[in-house]
């Protein structure tokens, strides 16, 4: 299941709804991405940020999220999965993104969750503009995110256990 929304969400309620009464689930992994009050700038520098605006490409966003989720469901034996991504104006501490994966065994839930987060970062058409002390600026893509996503182009480990 995927959702793109301006509003905040309740990770507990979302997770409970995801599990439902499926007692064949043995492990649930969640990732929650939050707005930090410090942004990495050139080199090892950091600067304080007051907030962030997330822009996205309506239509393509949903299409990409649905495709990424379908890929995860195809590659790992998941009982359920959920991606929620917010857009709009956010403050430090606010939730940006939530990814939950449920499986009979933990390895599939962990791997699929990391896969989804890595792919979100490199494929989902969102752009962050940080409102920093030195002014607002668009966040630059990080090569480390590309590298993290690239590891999933290999065949995943057999996550049946």
């Amino acid at each position, binding site marked *: 299941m995927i959702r793109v929304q301006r509003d905040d969400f309740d990770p507990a309620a979302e997770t409970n709804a995801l599990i439902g009464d499926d007692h064949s689930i043995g492990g649930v992994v969640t990732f929650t*991405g939050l707005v930090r009050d410090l942004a990495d700038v050139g080199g090892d520098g950091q600067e304080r940020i007051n907030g962030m605006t*997330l*822009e*996205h*490409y309506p*239509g*393509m966003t949903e*299409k990409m999220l649905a495709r990424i989720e379908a890929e995860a469901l195809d590659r790992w034996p998941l009982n359920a999965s959920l991606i929620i*991504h917010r857009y709009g104006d956010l403050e430090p501490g606010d939730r*940006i*993104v939530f990814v939950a994966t449920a499986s009979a065994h933990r390895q599939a839930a962990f791997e699929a969750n990391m896969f989804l*987060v890595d792919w*979100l*970062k*490199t*494929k*989902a*058409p*969102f*752009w*962050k*503009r940080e409102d920093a002390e030195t002014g607002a600026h*668009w*966040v*630059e*893509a*990080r090569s480390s*995110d590309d590298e993290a996503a690239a590891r999933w182009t290999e065949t995943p480990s057999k996550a049946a256990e």
Partner: protein
Amino acid sequence: MSEMKVLYFAWLRKKTGTGQETIHPPAEVATLGGLIDWLKTQSPGHADALADLSMVSFAVNQEYAEVEDPVKSGDEIALFPPVTGG
């Protein structure tokens, strides 16, 4: 005459001065690269936004695309910086 919709996001929207425009490129524009070359002639802002294509990603009809990919009348083209969600 061909008609396409072009969307700009993030700093490309700022530099071009528009988030969305309907364009009528000449018939010889058959690829994304050709379209971008033509767009650069439309305003100084367009030229500035598209000066360094290593900083720009592309989508045609909501699918990632490359400069050599074809474009045709009715397509929805999007030009944006590398994504930074998640």
